[in-house]
């Protein structure tokens, strides 16, 4: 045991990184394993220290930073809208936990209490929610932003509305503040007159994006719904109307009924499904949309681990949003995923996360 522990007399990350580095050099797994055995023996004898440190210095740390239409992020993981984003304090906590950017809950023109409880219920593979766009209204939200320190926060404000005048007013009010971008929620699946209803009408989509773009120079992302006839068609309309990026996808209309009482569980009866169950749908949407538009696509839907993130990148996403996974894993998920992506990039010999965007399109 003593000898074994002696092998780990250097910081563990040195072994880890150099092992990954070697994996990239050797031709196959068996060769790698034999090599590793030799190295492990040498490590035990403390003969490799200088060489390992040399390897570590030679190895290039993969670059996780990305840029979306001028908005720079330290890593491609964003907090999805609707999760935790009630206050700046809670958004800051998510940022400090490792998110590259944070998106607020959707803010509207007037305060909205949202739906009665139950607003959330777990199902196999995810969660159903019908919170109902609860938000304190743009003026109260603006006042809270004024009182908060947000300069260093990669803060994206999510907006919803039913008319372009509402979007116009909200954007012009917020634009004086140091928020970094907007995300237009044209896709909430369970509120009449907002979100999805607006988001499946190409004319409304165009009017809203154009009016927001007139009020701001900041990047404007548009969050799209899978609950439409053809997501690619709406994506193209959004691109042509001036959207700087597309967030794909919002939750999917779904329902859960209690068999004892015969009742739909959600007070609103129908809600939006999130979580691993919707990931294949989201990957398909990202794939289809990113093939047809030039603006960046931000993947969202059911991401639970780093493998999921990689899948979204290969499908064509340039960043991803994480939400429901926090219910399963807590905020530590951001650091876990970052580490997973980093190791993956080293093994695959990629210098930057940008190098794997859309690679699945080649096949």
């Amino acid at each position, binding site marked *: 045991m003593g000898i074994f522990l002696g092998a780990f007399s250097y910081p563990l990350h040195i072994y880890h990184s150099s092992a990954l580095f070697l994996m990239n050099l050797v031709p196959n797994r068996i060769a790698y394993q034999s090599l590793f055995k030799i190295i492990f023996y040498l490590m035990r004898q403390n003969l490799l220290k200088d060489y390992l440190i040399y390897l570590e210095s030679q190895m290039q740390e993969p670059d996780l930073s990305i840029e979306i239409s001028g908005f720079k992020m330290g890593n491609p993981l964003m907090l999805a809208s609707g999760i935790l984003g009630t206050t700046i*304090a809670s958004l800051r906590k998510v940022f400090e936990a490792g998110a590259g950017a944070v998106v607020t*809950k959707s803010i509207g023109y007037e305060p909205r209490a949202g739906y009665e*409880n139950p607003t959330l219920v777990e*199902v196999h593979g995810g969660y159903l*929610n019908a919170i109902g766009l609860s938000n304190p209204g743009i003026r109260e939200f603006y006042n809270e932003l004024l009182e908060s320190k947000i300069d260093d926060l990669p803060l994206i404000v999510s907006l919803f509305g039913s008319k372009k005048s509402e979007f116009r007013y909200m954007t012009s009010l917020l634009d004086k503040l140091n928020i970094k971008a907007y995300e237009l929620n044209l896709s909430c699946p369970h509120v009449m007159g907002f979100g999805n209803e607006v988001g499946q009408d190409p004319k409304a989509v165009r009017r809203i994006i154009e009016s927001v773009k007139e009020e701001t120079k900041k990047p404007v992302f548009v969050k799209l719904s899978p609950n439409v006839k053809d997501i690619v068609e709406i994506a193209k309309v959004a691109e042509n109307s001036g959207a700087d990026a597309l967030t794909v996808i919002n939750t999917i209309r779904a329902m859960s009924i*209690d068999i004892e009482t015969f009742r739909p569980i959600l007070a609103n009866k129908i809600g939006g499904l999130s979580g691993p169950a919707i990931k294949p749908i989201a990957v398909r949407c990202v794939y289809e949309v990113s093939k047809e538009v030039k603006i960046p696509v931000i993947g969202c839907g059911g991401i639970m681990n780093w493998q999921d993130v990689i899948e979204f990148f290969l499908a064509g996403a340039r960043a991803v949003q994480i939400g429901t996974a926090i219910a399963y894993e807590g905020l530590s998920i951001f650091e876990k995923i970052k580490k997973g992506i980093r190791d993956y990039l080293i093994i695959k010999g990629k210098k930057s996360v940008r190098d794997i965007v859309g690679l699945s399109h080649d096949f």
Partner: protein
Amino acid sequence: MAFPMIFNKPRIVKVLKVIDESPTVRSLIFKDDLCSKAKPGQFIMVWIPGVGEIPMSVSMMKDGLAGLTVRKVGEASNALFNMKVNSMIGIRGPYGNSFNPIIGKVMIVGAGTGLAPLMPLLDILTDKSASIDMIVGGKTVEEFIFMNKIKEILSKTESKIVVTTEDGSYGIKGLVTDAILPILKEKRFDMIYTCGPELMMKKVFDMAQEFNIPIQASLERVMKCGIGICGSCCIGKYNVCKDGPVFDFQMLKEVKDEFGLFKRDHSGKRVMF
């Protein structure tokens, strides 16, 4: 292959027993394994089918049974209050952290249905044979609940009960916080546990700070998801449903700009106390 169990979905249970605690407060007893193993201070989301879903402290856990204690104040709590034996309710949870029982001299300050999460704590504390000073407050004598049970539990250990009412109809006339000060001056405590109206807890916290005594307070905020993702119940950087509901000295200090000053309504708008 079996699917993994879903935890965050209402489990339908039948009300087995209804106990009148006061004209406006009742306890409902039901059978549920998970809730019967809840820790003191934890809460459940209670679905009243067709009406709503509200957070409720688990006020009793014993032999596979659990209880909740509800005061009729709003639509959902009224409906819950009016549940009869054999009525069906949905429960999910237990959620949140719990009171941390210590061995030593403790003070418990409760008022109204704030006593609900303190009752299971009391059970555990008497087992640890700590000395307990229990201070119970209320507006008037009709509001008091659990008094006989409290006396019974406390008779097993070194303890003292102080009761205050604002109108003097029971115990000392005055606020519960007025009764605490002389006790704190006289005796050194290792922990204060409190649950009740937030302004009361705020005063208790201020006194705990002054006398430098650790404190655990159970907070209440608007709750929707119950699992720490929707953010409705946020106070500062914390979610009451997940990081709480029990806040310790350090956490209370971190939320001092909100605790006892304002809460958020269903829209997230700030409402002053």
